[in-house]
């Protein structure tokens, strides 16, 4: 029995000294790129706008924030966001976050009432300047804009309350606020709204920024930000047809809907294949619009072939400009257009989950059908990381996509 006791003792010693298992630790490397002060310029995508509104949860799941968090592994010293100070949210139509609600055995996104107090917040702190300079609604020229109208005199910080919240002064511009903090690394993704604002209005309001003007604006923006050798990353503009807001309604095939068109005699005609019916039309279609000459679908819910062609031509030209700028200043180039096309056609499989552009269930797009979910934002952030790693030979770890927020079902 002595032996057994001895053996038992040996066994228990071995068990309690069980050695730690090895891990294969990620070796991050900045490859001498200075990531210490990162600044992001852009529009609602950069701001973290999602589910139709700006709020803290979206800001903490936005692509620029996710990217900034990963840059901490290669020397970034933090990322100041103009965080919404409450748990509420505000969208450009005065709404709050959309929520998925069940009604008549189907699910639909329903907005609440937005919190206007968010627009009155003043989140600028001179000693801690805001690094997420994404402004919902901003077009290319808005980055440069100070005054936007002379009579009455109005500054962009007054015209766009999303910028007014954190602008350093009334008279400033987005780009001035960027340059003033001497960024060492810059993300620039601008131009979506140069086509999208027009597209979302069914081509009945606003206008596509002409490609030559876009090229001029972007050239000024890039020389201001990058002419001194500052490194950065720039992204292309996705084809509007890759977003659910544009493609969802007819995703199961063409429907010969009756639509308004003041260009034709009688003011109505039938929808032509290739034309797009916009997401907000879904309630009208359910109410019987588009089925008869008496109730045609209003023109602002339809993009006709000419409007689509204008948008596509502009987008292609913008993306050529963006690629030229990227090579001119040796910037990392993210082909977001290709990424969104892949999400639209094939989808991405990430850690056991399938992501695609299908509205609500696809996982990439939030309930507004335009902006990304947290996980869609992480996919975008990882594409930025891939491009930065490739261009500058650094090793930035990828974000873990499935850790971020997803569409919430009731």
């Amino acid at each position, binding site marked *: 029995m002595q032996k057994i006791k001895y*053996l038992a003792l040996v066994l228990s010693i071995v068990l309690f000294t069980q050695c730690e298992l*090895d891990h294969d*630790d990620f070796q991050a490397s900045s490859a001498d790129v200075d990531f210490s002060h990162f600044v992001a310029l852009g529009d609602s995508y950069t701001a973290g706008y999602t589910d139709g509104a700006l709020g803290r949860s979206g800001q903490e799941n936005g692509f620029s924030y996710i990217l900034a968090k990963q840059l901490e592994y290669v020397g970034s010293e933090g990322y100041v966001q103009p965080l919404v100070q409450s748990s509420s949210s505000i969208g450009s139509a005065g709404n709050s976050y959309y929520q998925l609600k069940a009604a008549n055995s189907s699910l639909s996104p329903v907005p609440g009432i937005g919190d206007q107090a968010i627009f009155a917040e003043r989140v600028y702190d001179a000693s801690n300047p805001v690094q997420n300079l994404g402004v919902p609604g901003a077009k290319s020229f808005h980055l440069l804009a100070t005054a936007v109208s002379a009579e009455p005199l109005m500054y962009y910080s007054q015209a766009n309350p999303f910028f007014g919240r954190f602008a350093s002064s009334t008279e400033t511009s987005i780009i001035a606020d960027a340059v003033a903090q001497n960024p060492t690394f810059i993300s620039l993704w601008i131009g979506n709204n140069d086509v999208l604002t027009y597209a979302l209005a069914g081509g009945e309001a606003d206008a596509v920024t002409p490609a030559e003007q876009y090229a001029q604006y972007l050239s000024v923006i890039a020389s201001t930000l990058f002419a001194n050798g500052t490194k950065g990353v720039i992204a292309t503009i996705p084809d509007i047809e890759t977003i659910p807001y544009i493609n969802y309604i007819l995703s199961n095939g063409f429907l010969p809907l009756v639509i308004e068109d003041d260009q034709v005699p009688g003011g109505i005609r039938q929808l032509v294949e290739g034309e797009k019916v916009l997401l907000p039309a879904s309630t009208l279609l359910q109410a019987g619009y588009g089925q008869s000459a008496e109730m045609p679908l209003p023109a602002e819910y339809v993009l006709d072939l000419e409007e689509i062609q204008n948008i596509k031509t502009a987008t292609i030209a913008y993306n050529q400009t963006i690629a030229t700028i990227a090579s001119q200043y040796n910037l990392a180039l993210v082909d977001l257009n290709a990424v969104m096309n892949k999400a639209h056609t094939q989808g991405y499989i990430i850690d*056991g989950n399938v992501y695609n552009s299908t509205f609500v269930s696809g996982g990439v797009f939030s309930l507004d059908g335009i902006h990304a979910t947290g996980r869609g934002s992480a996919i975008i952030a990882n594409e930025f990381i891939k491009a930065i790693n490739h261009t500058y030979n650094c090793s930035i770890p990828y974000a*873990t996509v499935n850790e971020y927020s997803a569409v919430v079902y009731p």
Partner: protein
Amino acid sequence: MQKIIIVVAFLALCLNSKAEGYQVNAQSHKNIAMGHTGTGLSLGASSVHFNPGALGLMEKKYDFSLGGILVLSDVAFSKQNSTYQANTESPTGTPFYFYGAAKLNDKFVASLGVTTPYGNSLAWNKEWDGRYLIQDISLKAIVAQPTLSYKISDKLGFGIGAMIVYGAVDLNRALPVQNGNEEGSVNLSGSTVSLGFNTGLYYKVSDAFSLGLNYRSKVAMKMEDGDADFNVPASLSASFPAGNKFDAELPLPANLTLGAGFKVNDKLTLACDLQYVFWNAYDELVFDFEMNTPQLADSRNPREYENTLIYRLGAQYTFTDKLTVRAGVYYDETPISDNYLNPETPGMNKVGLSIGGSFNINDKLSVDASLLYIYGIEREAGYEPANFYGTYNSQAFLPGIGFSYSF
């Protein structure tokens, strides 16, 4: 026979896989301690599993042995191109064995084995990054094997047994549908009884040298009407119907083992085994749901396992009448190719190092103990259908104790 009944009543235990794939090569302390060799040896009643042919030449009238093992295992995962890391939180596995053999007459030996040669008990954190592939799995297989052995000549023995296999599986996966802070999940569970056989030839070339050949057949574990319980947000309940059932089939692979034993002198015996595992039987795992919906298709999971070899060496040294010590080593190849490595069965090539011994309390009764350390060789691979890649490390300690009784 009373002993048998007691042991059979004792079977409400869970298992853990520590050989490659989901085999559990821990079927007797004497054999474990010798690198799990024994096909070419006659180590007593455990030949029921290792080579029923060897029992044909059994010298004792009765031989019993039983034992249990603790499996303390850990798998570490480091995600590719990421700082994400995770470790398993697996419960302690408890494989066990019981063997009883009795000489009916000069030619025939009847025996029974109850073993746990397959199983998998693995748990990752519920919220871990691979949760859509697997959260946790418990696969159990208990084999009851009534066996008959025949002495063809003083040198040659043959044996064959029927394997009656009780198999049960219970696994959890997360589903990518969010409801507030809770994510959806599915639990799949079921059990079945399947059949196979185990046969062997044992040839005593000389007093010093013996050879054995053993074949354990494949057992197709066909699960019918298993329970598929979905936990999803209320608004999706129509897409994931309650009370759903599934059919699935998991093959327990065949094994062909050639073994040799060599008595160097009165004290020292050496053994080596070459075990060929027909893992290619495991091509894919399909959960065929009784009720499908547009959101719920059958789950097809390619596995594409490949046949493997296990190389085993063992030694036994008799110190005194009372004490025998053993040691062994083996190398176990993984059946899983680089693009089909799933965290449900995170396989890698493994080296096993073992020690152990027997202490004879008296002429009839001995205490057997063994300790096996399994080191998994670091592997960077992934599961392509889920695009889930990373580096896996693993290790396991298997201490165990048991008794042999013969007269």
